[in-house]
Every structure is written in structure tokens, then in C-alpha cells.
């Protein structure tokens, strides 16, 4: 059952990733990205990494995607009329069905050719918040600190780029 769920999530992740890139409608692309992130969260859940799965949904599928959608709406990339009309529930159901069937086929093939991965049982403890925190603040302390600096640099840098619109003295602006 777990392996079947893994294959479905994997197929869904790849399909939605392709859908995101190939879709011409920006909003649909963004929604595909949401589905992609949810399916990756599902993969994390199967790996017993509950904390990571939760964070994936809260941070990526939640906060970052809302930001994406806001940017898309504000930038007005597409014609407003075409933003939603092409997205139909029908298509969603068809896609999900296709994923399930395709996963079934893959599962069958993998079962016959002996390619099914084995799940190890010692994974049940590493995904909890406690376990993550324990290694994060001891073994990976250095990486944790450098990440803090990296994020600071990214925020300051983004502000810098956004703030300095043109040459303040000469007002030079070519582009």
C-alpha cells in the first residue's frame, strides 16, 4: 500500500511539474505548482518525516504560493478574462484519474520486474520535530548559522535591488 501511494505521489509530482512548465496560463501553472508541492509533502509523509511534510505544506503550498499568486495578479501577465475560464473541475478529475491509472500500471510493471523499493523500518524516529531539532542544533549547527547569514544577505540584497531605482545623482536610466 505504501509503495503504491509512493508511486502515485511520484507520478503526480512529475505530472504536475510538467504541467507547470508546459501550461501557458500563469495562474494554472501556479496551481499546478501547489499540487506539486502537496504531492511532495505526501512523499515526505511516506518517509515518516511528518515535520518536513507539515512545513512543506505550511511554508511552500501556503505562504510562498500565496505570494506567487499575488505577484501574478499584480503583474497582470495574462488577459484577465482568460485567467480562470480554462481551468475546469472536469480536467482536474481527469488528471487525477490518469495519475491513478498510470501509477497502477507502473506498480504492476515494477512488481513483475522486481524493481519495487524496500521500505526500511528505522525511519520512524528521524522525522519528528524533536529529532530534527536535536541534530539541527548540534551536528548541523554550522550549517544552521550560515543559513541565517545567507537569508539575511538575501533579504538585504533584495531590498537593495528594489530600492536603488536609478542613479541618484545623474538620474541615469537607460533601460
Amino acid at each position, binding site marked *: 500500500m505504501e509503495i503504491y501511494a509512493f508511486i502515485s505521489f511520484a507520478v503526480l509530482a512529475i505530472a504536475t511539474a510538467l504541467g507547470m512548465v508546459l501550461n501557458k496560463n500563469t495562474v494554472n501553472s501556479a496551481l499546478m505548482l501547489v499540487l506539486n508541492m502537496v504531492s511532495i509533502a505526501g512523499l515526505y509523509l511516506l518517509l515518516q518525516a511528518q515535520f518536513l511534510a507539515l512545513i512543506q505544506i505550511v511554508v511552500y503550498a501556503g505562504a510562498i504560493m500565496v505570494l506567487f499568486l499575488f505577484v501574478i495578479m499584480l503583474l497582470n501577465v495574462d488577459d484577465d478574462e482568460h485567467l480562470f475560464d480554462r481551468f475546469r473541475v472536469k480536467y482536474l478529475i481527469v488528471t487525477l484519474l490518469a495519475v491513478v491509472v498510470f501509477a497502477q500500471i507502473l506498480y504492476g510493471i515494477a512488481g513483475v520486474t522486481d524493481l519495487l523499493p524496500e521500505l526500511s523500518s528505522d525511519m520512524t524516529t528521524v522525522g519528528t520535530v524533536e529529532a530534527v531539532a536535536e541534530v539541527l542544533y*548540534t551536528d*548541523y549547527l554550522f550549517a544552521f548559522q550560515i543559513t541565517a*547569514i545567507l537569508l539575511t544577505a538575501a533579504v538585504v*540584497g533584495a*531590498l*537593495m535591488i528594489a530600492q536603488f531605482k536609478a542613479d541618484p545623482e545623474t538620474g*541615469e536610466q537607460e533601460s
Partner: protein
Amino acid sequence: MNYLHDIQAFLPGVIIAFTGLITILLESLKRDVRTMYGVSAAGVLAALIAAILSSTSEGGTAFTDAIVYGGWSSFGQVIILIGTLFSILLSADYLKSKSLHFGEVYAMILFASLGMLVLAASNHLITLFLGIETMSVALYVLAGLMHYRKTGAEAALKYFLLGAFATGFLLFGIALIYGSTGEMTLTSVAAAASPTPLFLAGSGLLLTGIFFKIGAVPFHMWTPDVYEGTPTTLTGFMATSAKTASFVAFALILVRMVPETSYESWQSVIQVIAILTMIVGNVIALVQENVKRMLAYSSIAHAGYLLVGMASGGYSAVLFYLFAYTIMNLGAFGVIAYFERTKNFDFTSIESYAGLGSRAPLMGVLLSVFLFSLIGIPPFAGFMGKYYVFASAVQAGMIPLAVIGVLASAASVYYYLRVMVYLYFKPEHKPVHLEKASVLFTATLILLAASTLYFGIEPLVSVTDLFGFVTGISP
């Protein structure tokens, strides 16, 4: 775990990180850029002293094997910090003339420098990735400082997109290596590695990411555009310190992570890339009309010479070359930055340098010194660097590699000398009012030129010291 020991092991980086944060805080407190400039220069100087002190000490690992310190890696940090220090010293005047003199610029330089220090000390694949990311994110911002110009926007966007792509390769490579060995520390990876397709694919992707960062052919396409659009002194920073950091990290990977059985196949890959890089870099540089683009292609060619040293296992030669390359290349970019400060005159094309050798005698001589050193003419440090690198190739029995290197380097004489021909032997076609350089700026350039000369004449002293450093640590 002993945190005090760990902090001391990464003292240069800790100092740089704190200085960077203090610079940002000061910026919001007080709008005086001179203070930020002074604070950051002092911080880098302190870090440099710490790095020099630790490079003579016993090496080891810290932060539960996340980083190495001492020996090599510390000497790499010394080179990086020298590059950072001189970039900061040269930047003030140039940025002021471009109205880009903000405190945050120094903070970004410091954060980039921290990333480079992390990179040069990495003993863990996560540390390697974070070092590259911290360095790159700060450099993307610096590349985009002049984003109101077309070239500046192009530089930032190109660097960001291609850099993010390369980081993706690197990260995927790391994931595959972890997947095939179950280890992330470089030495444990070497112990657990077996030449499975997964591990080979991972190594290939990791190498791709690194080759992108050092600007080796065929991953060099971003270099000329990025170098052209970035403020010149920061281009110098990018071309020297960033390259040094990537090369030191590359050497650490080669020595610590590559299992002995597959070392030869790695060597042959690097050899091929080295030959391509030297030839393509030098040939394209021949036809450049823009001085900064010419220097960009020349830096690709220099990456090729450095790869010759990497392929033949002459890591101490590579370190000396990186040191020589840092001082001479920063100097060359510094002099170009001086000319570019001129208001209402475009100094991008090589023809605009016509006749300036007599108008600005000191700067002309300094530029000639740096260019001669970049060519590899005997009394300068560049010659000794090339000599050591090619000698190590000959010692390792890679004669064809050394021959191609020397031939490529001979071809490079043309485009470096061409600048000097314009400086001294062409008539000035348009009167230019050159601004006066500040005392500090001139003194910095003279110091760089003097050390180019000193490490060319007295290389034996410095190199035996260097070999001391290198043998001092078992990498």
C-alpha cells in the same frame, strides 16, 4: 563538542560575519558611508590576521566535521581575505564616482566573503552548498548594482538565472552522492563510495556546478556579460576571491572526497576541461574590443591554467597561482576602475585608452605591470605562478597538457600587449579630463604592484613557506 574551539577554528569567518551584521546595523543608525567603509576594512584586516595566524597552526576539523581549518584551507582564506580587503579599499572612490556608494554594498561584500570562507573550509557537502549559495546570492546583488543600465541588468539577470541553474545541478549531484553512499562528510563519502551509476552521475553533476563557478569551458558563457555589467572593482572581487574560494573547495573535494580508485578518471576529465578552457578563453580574448570583456576571457584562460595544476595534483602550485592571480588581476581591474571614473567619457572600448600612458603616467605604468604579470613575464608573480603550475604538470608526466598551456599562454601576449600599444603608441584622439585618484586608492594600487613584483623576485621564500603550509596539514 567544544564550541570555543570550533569558533576559534572558524575565527576569520566569525569576524567577517559579525562585521557584516554590524555594518548593516550602523547603516540604519547613521548615514555616513565613510564609517561603514572603515569598519568593514578594519574587520577584514582583523580576519586576515586571524587567518594568517591559523594557517601556521595545526589543522583539523571543527563543528562535527562540517569544516576543516589550518594549512591549505586557511591559506585559501588568506588569499580570499586579501582579495576582499583590496576590493574594499579600491571600491570607495569608484563607487562614489558612480553614485553607488552605499553602506549596504560593503555588507554584501562581507557576506560574499563569508560565503567564500565557508566554501574554502568545507568538509561537508552541506557546508559546500551553503558556502556557494551565500557567496552567489551576495554576488548576484553586487552584479546588479548598476541595474539601471542595460548591461547591469543583463549581468544581474544572467548571473542569477544561470547561477541558480548551476546550483540546481550541484544540489542534485549532492543528493545523488548522498543517495549512493549515505554519507555527507567528504572523507566518509570517499570511504563509502563505489563506482555505481548513481555515484558517477552525482559526481558529474557536482563537477558541473563547480566548473560553472570557476568559469571553465563549456560553462563559461556567463562570464563576459557578468564581468562587463558589474561595477569594475567588484568585478575584480568576483574574478579573484570567488574563483579562489571555488578552487580551494575543488581541491578539498579532489583530495578528500574522490576515492583513490577513481582518481585517475577524475584527472582525465579535468585535463580535457583544462585544455578546452585554455584554448577557448585565449582565442576569444584575442578578438575582444571591450577591455572588461577581454579581462573576462583572460580570466577564463587563467582558470584553464589553474585547472592544469588541479589535474596534475599540484595543489600548492595552484595556491601560489591563485595568490599571484588575485593581486595582479585586482590591480588590473583597479586601474581600469580609475579610468572609468572619468565623467562623460565611455571607457569600455580599448580605443578609448589611446595615448593615456603619457596623460596618466603612474596609472599607465601600474597597468603595464599588472598586464605583464598576467602575461607571465619573468620578474613578476604571474610568471612564477605559471611556472609552478606547468612544472607540476610536467612532473606528473602530462607533457601535452603543459605544452598546450605554454602555447595558449604565448597567444595571450597579443591581447594583453594590445592594451599597452594603445596606451603608449597611439595618439590621443580626444582630450579627456582625468580625475585625480585619492591617496589611498593610489597607495593600494602601488602596494599591489609592489607585491606583484616582490612575489615574482622572491618567490622561493614565499613558496617554501607555502609548501610548509601545505605539508603542515594532512588534507
